[in-house]
């Protein structure tokens, strides 16, 4: 048995595409705790939507199991599952009013008229739609349609709320305010939630934990901070935020710290729980914002400015070091010196801001 409120055990989905067998979801394990919001994050085609559709029951696993609150769900049809989904395109019933849309599931469940009225009213005020009961979905703005869709799911008081890229049809400003609102709502109701998105900023703002998926597999599961600061693979590091990778070899291992040489400099970096041996090839992850640039000085890595873009709140540089261009972001430019293309500079690294990964080739 598993412990998670929602548990996926070696969940796999294969389907035929012409003659080849595609493994859309490849043996993933995941446990989501009660009241937790977990996002499935990854590029399109990574299997996140397929996973969500298996949880909701619209697709059946090729192998592996789905448990919700200890009950096996594999062959329970979607209409019998304690899940409610918010669809990417909202999927509102165009022929029903806002009220009737939200009341739909309760009516299917044969709730009494009083219960339906009370619950729908409660949810409508919860999602901020009071007064729009009689409107048709077509008469609402995108954000309001989104709220109806959310309300329609919440009113069912499902054990697990599923959201499939719910904000992708909204404009940028609305997206930001809606995601804050969804998070607040989720915490207030305390509902277990799985949220699919390809927008990393969305995932970072919303989630208790982020699940990074690629190629049907889970690459890493962790809090937003863990994912960003201590990625376990080149893919995750590159997918979340911007990343520079420096190749190197391990000189020496001292307890949980590893000594590596970079451009003639010796650095001691935390092993972050991994085992390394002297001579291992490694990658040093260097976030653009944790690098500082200064006038050439001894003890720093020398380079030349190849690119300089002034954005007001920050300056983006491309610094040529050897045969590599390193991206650097410097905040608050008015307080600093701004360098022009062609100028010689020195890059300063601080071991505390660096993260070590075992070497892997770049994904094509």
């Amino acid at each position: 048995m598993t412990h998670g409120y929602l548990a996926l055990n070696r969940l796999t989905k294969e389907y035929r595409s012409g003659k080849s067998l595609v493994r859309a979801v490849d043996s993933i394990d995941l446990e989501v705790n009660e009241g937790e919001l977990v996002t499935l994050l990854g590029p399109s085609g990574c299997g996140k939507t397929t996973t969500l559709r298996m949880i909701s029951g619209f697709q059946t696993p090729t192998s592996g199991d789905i448990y919700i609150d200890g009950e096996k769900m594999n062959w329970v049809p979607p209409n019998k599952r304690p899940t409610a989904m918010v669809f990417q395109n909202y999927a509102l019933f165009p022929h029903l009013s806002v009220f009737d849309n939200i009341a739909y599931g309760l009516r299917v469940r044969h709730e009494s008229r009083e219960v339906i009225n009370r619950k729908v009213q409660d949810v409508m005020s919860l999602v901020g739609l009071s007064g729009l009961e009689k409107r048709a979905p077509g008469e609402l703005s995108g954000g309001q349609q989104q709220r109806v869709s959310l309300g329609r799911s919440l009113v069912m008081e499902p054990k697990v709320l599923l959201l499939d890229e719910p904000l992708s049809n909204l404009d940028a400003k609305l997206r930001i305010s809606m995601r804050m609102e969804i998070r607040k709502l989720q915490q207030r109701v305390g509902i277990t939630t799985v949220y699919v998105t390809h927008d990393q900023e969305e995932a970072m703002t919303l989630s208790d934990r982020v699940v990074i998926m690629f190629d049907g597999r889970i690459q890493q599961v962790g809090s937003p901070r863990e994912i960003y600061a201590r990625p376990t693979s080149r893919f995750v590091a590159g997918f979340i935020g911007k990343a520079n990778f420096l190749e190197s070899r391990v000189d020496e291992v001292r307890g949980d710290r590893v000594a590596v040489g970079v451009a003639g400099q010796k650095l001691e970096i935390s092993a972050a729980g991994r085992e390394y041996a002297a001579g291992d090839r490694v990658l040093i992850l260097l976030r653009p914002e944790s690098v500082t640039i200064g006038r050439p000085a001894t003890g720093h890595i020398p380079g030349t400015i190849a690119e300089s873009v002034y954005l007001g709140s920050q300056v983006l540089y491309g610094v040529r070091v050897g045969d590599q261009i390193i991206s650097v972001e410097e905040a608050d430019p008015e307080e600093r010196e701004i360098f022009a293309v062609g100028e010689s500079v020195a890059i300063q690294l601080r071991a505390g801001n660096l993260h070590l990964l075992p070497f892997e080739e770049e994904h094509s």
Partner: protein
Amino acid sequence: MAHRGRSSAGGLEGSRLILREPLVLIVILGIFYLLLVFVVLPIADVVVKSVLVKGRFTLKNYIDVFSKGYLIAPFFNSILLGFSTACTGTLMGFVFAFAVTRTSLPGKRFFRQIATFPIVSPPFVVALAAILLFGRAGILTSYVEAVVGSYSIYGLGGLVLVETIAYGPLAFLVLVGVLQAIDPALEEAAMDLGASRARVFATVTLPLSVPGIAAAWLLVFIESIADFGNPMVLSGNFSVLSVQAYLQITGAFNLSTGATLAMLLLLPTALAYVVQKYLVSRRSYVTITGRPSSAVLRNLDWYVKLPVYGLTYLFTAVIFLFYGMVVWGSLQKLWGVDATLTLRNYAQVLRAGGRYITDSIVLAGIAAPISGILAMILAYLIVRKRFVGRRVMEFVSMLTFAVPGTVVGIGYILAFNQRTAVFPFVLTGTGAIIVALLVFRYMPAGIQSAVAALQQIDASIEEASADLGAASVTTFWKVTLPMIAPAFFSALVYSFVKAMTAISAIIFVVSGSWNLITVAILGYVDNSQYAQAAAMSLLLIGIILVALGVIQLFVNRVGRGARVASILGR
């Protein structure tokens, strides 16, 4: 997203899901049974009848037909008629469609209405009008004779004229869709690159509409070959398959020969249907977006305007002339003898033919809603469900669309005049056989429009319903059906109109206890009671228009159609 549910849900997986919903399974099995009994078996019976003599397989019937001149001539006559009508009908349809979509012809809406009018009336009304105009006592006969000498409206020439008017509008509807879907920007681009208007037409407009023209041609060809009413009235000595098959069965009581002739009728229509469905439609360049293009090439040169406008006005005048003639004829005291205007014919027709009218309304009124609902259910299963045999269901349910009415009618008398293990009831002579025939014969059009509507609607709306706890049956009634209500109502209208005007298949299954207006009109024509035939025809058209009005009122009251359409696109 890369793997949206539908495409990846394989047949097997879908079938396993269906097993979880016994009610859906029962509906699927029930529909398969109905299709077997009312579509497959009747057609199979015609095939069997044509190759089975005294329980043994033989080609004797075919050899008989091919060796007797009076039996094989109709085959070539039908092909010749179909070919000629397809050419003239498509020309008429194209000219009308071009005028409506690509010119600044004044009164376009009016011409659209005119062009679709023959569809609402029983096709052989046109033949009746031709007799009134050009027949032996026709009012224009002497003038025409003065020009071309002695002639007869009965025969190939008259039939081509009449069927062009009756089926040209079908070609028009196909071609309007095609021409509207061609982006005028393409034509403007060609002109911008220096092409003259004639060159634009020859190098852009025409090539892009070729698949549509082919589709329209084949459609008119099928309709013309399968037509029974007009040839029955107007063929004279020019014998065609549909009429010959009917005469063999009702006149000579020779079912085998009738079935064999029906098979010969099925051959070219089935071929044309297959070519249409699998060759022509695949080659279409234009994707119908449902968003009619607004731009029009105005200021056309006189050499374009003259023929296009001229032909449009000519065809319109002919349509008016023919239908006006029916009105005129219906008011004559005695056609060709006493031209006193009177309403006596209507009174007489109502008195003598009241039973025909009520039977027609009752049977069409029962058949149309059943046909509509069944079509919606079938479309839902075909588009939204995955199960073994889905393709077979789709193919079989569309089959009667391609099969001439004569074949279906003969099939029904063969299939339902005795009890069988599959269907232990005798239906011959009952109203039920007529209703069943109407339901399954006019269902395909409803299926097509519902399939098109469903494909426009994102499946996630129905998934949302399932997700909120509704079983498939609930989802169908509460979500799918309301959303495709416009398709349902158009299916309802279509089946009702078709049921009221049907003749080719129905003529085989009518009986003393149940009769239909169309059969009555044919009877009047047969007795040369043209005035009564005209009066009855107009009553029929009147009843259809009233029924359409009632349905429209109901749709307006339900009033969701427009709203449904407005947000389906998202």
